[in-house]
């Protein structure tokens, strides 16, 4: 076996390979993608049923409800972020691979956002219309949801890394992540409300953008540390 030394892809190559693999896995198991989306739709449906069909009230509180539903739906899908890889041993290979672990983790978070966060962002206008939320807030809402779900995928990956392989992982993950996610919820929901009231929204959007950048730079390292600890 002359010249059979392992040729590694570079950093971008490694990133793309992991993203592509996760997208392919999601494509072949559509339930993982669709279930959080259905959950998002159902929770949003519960709201008018619970508080009554009063259009004014729905329009006023719609932003908060949409954001809460998005937060819970994102949490629902986070539990399985590393679970399958943990069970079939892929995660161990990732830990052993010469590629830097934070990069692989970042790739997994990107893939997770593409299959769970992005669909929520795309579906949210439909729900906003059904709540009769003002049309002018729709763009802002999609923007806040896009920035917020990226941050949630990254923040949640830390929790998923810490709880992977634990029996009681699911409820525990929510307990760990929800308090940390509160700034995202506050700024996301409030910015949409401000947009509906035709107020200035740039402060909220800047904050969400800054949080997203902070999560992009720091969270993969924390997740990598968490995964190493979980697999010691």
């Amino acid at each position, binding site marked *: 076996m002359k010249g059979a030394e392992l040729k590694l892809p570079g950093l971008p190559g490694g990133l793309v390979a992991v993203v592509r693999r996760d997208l392919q896995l999601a494509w072949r198991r559509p339930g993982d993608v669709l279930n959080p989306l259905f959950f998002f739709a159902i929770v949003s449906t519960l709201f008018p049923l619970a508080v009554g069909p009063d259009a004014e009230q729905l329009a006023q509180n719609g932003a908060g409800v949409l954001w809460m539903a998005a937060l819970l739906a994102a949490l629902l899908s986070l539990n399985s972020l590393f679970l399958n890889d943990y069970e079939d041993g892929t995660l161990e290979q990732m830990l052993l691979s010469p590629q830097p672990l934070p990069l692989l983790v970042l790739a997994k978070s990107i893939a997770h956002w593409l299959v769970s966060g992005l669909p929520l962002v795309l579906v949210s206008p439909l729900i906003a219309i059904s709540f009769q939320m003002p049309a002018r807030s729709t763009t802002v809402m999609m923007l806040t949801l896009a920035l917020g779900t990226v941050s949630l995928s990254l923040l949640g990956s830390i929790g998923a890394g810490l709880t992977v392989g634990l029996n009681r992982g699911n409820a525990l993950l929510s307990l760990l992540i929800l308090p940390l996610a509160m*700034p995202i919820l506050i700024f996301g929901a409030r910015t949409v409300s401000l947009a509906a009231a035709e107020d200035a929204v740039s402060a909220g959007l800047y904050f969400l953008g800054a949080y997203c950048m902070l999560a992009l730079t*720091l969270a993969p390292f924390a997740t990598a540390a968490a995964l190493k600890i979980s697999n010691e």
Partner: protein
Amino acid sequence: MWTFVHKLSSPPYFYGLAARMAPWFAGAGLLPIGYGTVAGLFFAPPDYQQGDAFRIIYVHVPAAYLSMLAYIVMAATAGIGLIWRMKLAHAVAAAAAPLGAWFTFLALMTGSIWGRPMWGTWWEWGDPRLTSELILLFLYFGYMALRAAIDDPTRADRASAVLALVGAVNVPIIHFSVEWWSSLHQGPTLVREGGPAIEPAMMWPLLAMIFGFSLLFGALLLSRVRTEVLFRERRARWVRKLVYPEETA
């Protein structure tokens, strides 16, 4: 210096040292607490607006202060334990969490009791500090739940340390974002530009209480770390010697 740190991180040495230091902390803490209680409840003049109801600050402010200090202690020792793999630091972090949670609860409860006559409500969502204090309580719960969920002690230590550090990065962000709401809470009176805006007869008992509570926290922390060390080292020879002195003698 380093030899002292090494000595300190040895469980039997620390166990003995903590046993000797805890009573001193407790004794030194009870003095200012005693002075603060008497002076605060009986000698400080009633507030011109709030009457005697303001006197709850002598418990509320120290508790709120310690709820945050305990988190800092927890995160700092967790970080030390994670970086230098010092087991004793992890034991301190584990011992600080329930104490911090209790101080947070105390701050929330006294604040709520004070809020009833002052704001006319037990709970006010519009107040940022109340809300961030509640989130702090949830952070403590999450930390303790993660610890409890992991059976392997080393993994529990290290995983919860990562969580504590992530939380420490997030706490200022949480505080700032919650502050974005309009505030009902009293502005700062002790530490602010232009000197404290509080009558000295009210201030000294408050400072004494903060000082005394901190020392009491130190005493409680030391004795909690002792039990934690004892439990973790339950299979070690020195613990056996401690429990059954006649066996080896």
